[in-house]
């Protein structure tokens, strides 16, 4: 084992933190708030430990020096590499992790088994970050399982409700099939090339290489909710605790999408073909996501379908960027990814706060939020308006960037895509706006104003301030998005 220790420290820290929290919960009677604060501190510590790698990678990007690595590439070893895309996504998931941990300080209070919640959350984050940082296929599989298994448990966390268990079971079955398919794909690639270390551009021409890549595509595609592999997603997002839905929708599924693209490129799939595939699938994602969201009565399921649609917008932009070699389109797609993480995180957390205080699950039950929980109504409204792409919020900037970056392709497919995109964004108003209207409508029966706990208010405020900042000053977010466009760097 050699290389830069800074790279492995965040991972080790999170893993150790997860075990420590599990142990603490087992040995002592700890209050939920204490565990939540510890989790937040662990995530913050992870962010701090990530900082040196970020700086190193920044210099590496500008001076063309090799990227930070850690570990060895021999079979059975673990190789990590600090690619810019992975670091940005790691930072994003840890930041959202901090918000979610603080939020859970109040949100999970009524759950009896909160002691297991925090270690699972940290393990899920560890798995995700490992997946992003690792540079060999076998460990990719291992980390993917490390991310998924806590995910199954967390989705079914509220096991006293049948629907949560059902959703968790569905996610478990489909997710296991997906990871097994990935394993099969990895085996096939290993058989063809005799290698597991990425990048592996010979894979596509190796015997059975294409089949292996297809298996990887299916496996990761399911994890990122690409239509028609999305069927687990509305149930899982709809039934999981809102904090977990925020994590799944905001970071995990979108990171796996990026990973899917990076993996395909590093395995030698031509960017043009991958782009075409993404554009084709994006139409399905947008249209199905929006059409299904229109008919939903449950707020979280609606948000879940909106995630599918938003993934479609991203795939369209990324597909255009790859197919026509337009870096601006890639940037626009990643800008949407970052903005979406903020907005969808905020939407799910606001929804959770409504549920916590008023037991609102259906859209109609959100009436009167403005009188009961004014701050939540504002943050929820802000998130929804942002997702709907209403200026001046970040969603609109993303829309503008995507359209403006796509047009120079001068291709019929892009024009058709732009038309579908615009029609879809119009369709989406059909479910975002009634939701906003309900938030600000008078309640059906007289209700008193509730005091929103600081544990919930703080992350919501931080997220809304960040959203406003990104909306009014998209430049910084765009710089982060530019890091993500270095997809080919391993």
């Amino acid at each position, binding site marked *: 084992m050699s290389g830069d220790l800074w790279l492995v420290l965040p991972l080790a820290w999170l893993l150790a933190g997860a075990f420590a929290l599990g142990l603490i919960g087992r040995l002592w009677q700890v209050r939920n708030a204490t565990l939540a604060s510890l989790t937040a501190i662990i995530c913050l510590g992870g962010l701090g430990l990530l900082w040196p790698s970020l700086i190193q990678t920044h210099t590496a990007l500008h001076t063309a020096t090799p990227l930070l690595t850690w570990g060895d590439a021999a079979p059975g070893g673990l190789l990590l590499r600090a690619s810019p895309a992975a670091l940005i996504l790691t930072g994003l998931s840890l930041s959202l992790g901090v918000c979610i941990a603080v939020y859970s300080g109040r949100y999970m209070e009524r759950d009896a088994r909160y002691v297991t919640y925090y270690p699972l959350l940290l393990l899920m984050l560890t798995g995700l970050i490992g997946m992003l940082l690792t540079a060999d296929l076998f460990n990719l599989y291992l980390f993917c399982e490390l991310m998924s298994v806590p995910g199954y448990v967390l989705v079914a966390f509220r096991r006293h409700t049948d629907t949560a268990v059902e959703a968790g079971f569905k996610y478990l079955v489909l997710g296991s099939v997906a990871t097994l398919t990935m394993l099969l794909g990895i085996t096939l690639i290993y058989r063809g090339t005799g290698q597991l270390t990425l990048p592996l551009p010979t894979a596509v021409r190796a015997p059975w290489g294409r089949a292996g890549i297809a298996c990887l595509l299916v496996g990761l595609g399911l994890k990122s909710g690409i239509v028609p592999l999305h069927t687990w997603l509305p149930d899982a997002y709809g039934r999981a605790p809102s904090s977990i839905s925020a994590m799944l929708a905001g970071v995990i599924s979108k990171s796996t999408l990026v990973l899917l693209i990076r993996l395909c490129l590093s395995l030698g799939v031509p960017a043009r073909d991958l782009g075409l595939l993404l554009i084709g699938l994006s139409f399905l994602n947008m249209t199905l996501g929006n059409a299904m969201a229109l008919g939903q009565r449950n707020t979280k399921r609606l948000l879940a379908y909106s995630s599918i649609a938003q993934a479609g917008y991203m795939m369209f932009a990324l597909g255009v960027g790859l197919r026509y070699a337009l870096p*601006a389109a890639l940037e626009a797609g990643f800008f949407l990814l970052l903005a979406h993480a903020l907005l969808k995180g905020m939407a799910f957390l606001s929804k959770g706060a409504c549920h916590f205080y008023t037991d609102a699950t259906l859209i109609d039950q959100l009436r009167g939020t403005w009188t009961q929980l004014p701050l939540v109504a504002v943050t929820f409204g802000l998130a929804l308006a942002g997702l709907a792409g209403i*200026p001046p919020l970040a969603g609109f900037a993303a829309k503008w960037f995507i*359209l403006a970056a796509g047009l120079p392709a001068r291709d019929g497919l892009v024009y058709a895509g732009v038309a579908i995109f*615009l029609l879809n*964004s*119009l369709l989406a108003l059909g479910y975002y706006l009634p939701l906003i209207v309900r938030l600000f*409508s008078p309640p059906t029966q007289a209700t008193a104003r509730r005091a929103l706990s600081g544990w919930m208010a703080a992350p919501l405020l931080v997220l809304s301030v960040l959203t406003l900042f990104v909306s009014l*000053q*998209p430049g910084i977010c*765009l710089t982060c998005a530019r890091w993500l466009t270095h997809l080919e760097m391993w």
Partner: protein
Amino acid sequence: METVLLIVIPSVPLLVALLLTAFGKRAARAAQWIAGLGALTTLGATFALLPALHSGETPSIVLPWIPAANIQLRLHVDWLTLPFLVTEAAVTLAATVYSWGYHHADERSGYFYALLLLFGVGMSGTTLADDLFLFYVFWELMLIASCLLILVWGDGERRGAIALKYFIFTHIGSLMVLVGLLVLYDAVGSDSLAALRAESWALAPGLATTVLTLFFVGFCVKMAIFPLHLWLPDAHTVAPMPVTIMLAAAMLSMGTYGILRFPFSLFSRAQLEPFGVYLMLAGLVSEIYGALMAMAEQDVKRIIAYSSVSQMGYILFGLGTLNRVGIEGATLHVIYHAIVKALLFMVTGLVIRATGRRNLKALGGLGGAMPLTTVCAAIGALSILGMPPLGVFNSEWMIFSGGFETAHIVLSVLTLFGSLLTVVYALRFAGTIFLGERPSELTVESTPWVMRAATLLLAGLLIIEGLFPATLFDWAARGLPLLLKGALQ
């Protein structure tokens, strides 16, 4: 100095709105005065720009914003902008002052005034923006602010549904505009309108036609031209009166500004010529349809709302003539219409406040009880039907004579005679409410003096602008050389 003023116009009300929101309940009591001060500052700054414009400058400012996407924050004022800028600032001030009487102060007043100012910022920002991205941001800001005002402070149970209808309808129009903006952005490779005006760029003929169609349809939604007007009567009826005043008097004309700023300034006469007759036709249909609906309505607020559809028809007709007189008349009509429409809505608001009724059948004979309001209503009604020497006569005259300069004499004759319908609904409105027998059970309560004072001020303004229109003519005429690539000189 001018650059400071340029920044002041949108940012002072924006800051005031933010302050009002931040202080929320604590600022509720003082909100109306602070908001009035913000609106007054904007109007003052707008007039302070005049000397610079008269000396031939076009004040503009460029600030970096999103360098990564080559988007700058550009504000700019020229003679095309000014009439609209003055109208919006004045209407915002009038609506704010009117709210002092109309709006019952409560703990949410701060938010009401903040949104009112944001609505104004949306409009002044739209006119000042010299950047495609910024233009669209402000363009939608006025929609969001007005929609929230209707949603939270509107009258009646159905306000949620109506706010939704208003949003979706106008947003569809905005999306058409957005596509047009993006094509322009793509053509010149920058989002600067200055670059679009200065540099040579060309679109394929088919694409140019498509873009022009999108622009015209998109802006006509905002202007509420038949059959794209469906959002207007409901939104105007449900909105609280100050918001209705801003919607009808200022926001509708944003569509006109859009047409002048994009299709008319960026494309040549040859490219626009095929659209002229369709614009005239749409204007004519809208004029007659709006007037007929206003004649048939019983709800006093809806009568004035439909009259907006009709009046926007005149403006579109004037634009469609594509000649000097017609376009100048259309610009003038924007200003006059703003005054007269604000006046009529204020009168309607006074009547509703005094009697608690809004059905024409239940009203009548208020002349004795509300003498001042009656005089204002008479001035407003006579003005909108185009009686000299009141304001609107001037602009209608020019629009009609612009029509007769074109080859489409039949359309012009029809428009001229169509204006007779205005006489019917305007006199029916004023006559039924203020003259005749007063229903026995109709009681009249006193109205806040601020509302009456604001109404009287506008009535006076209408007479003054009708008698001494030289300044307004001058403003409207100076913008003309910027249009149709200079073909109007």
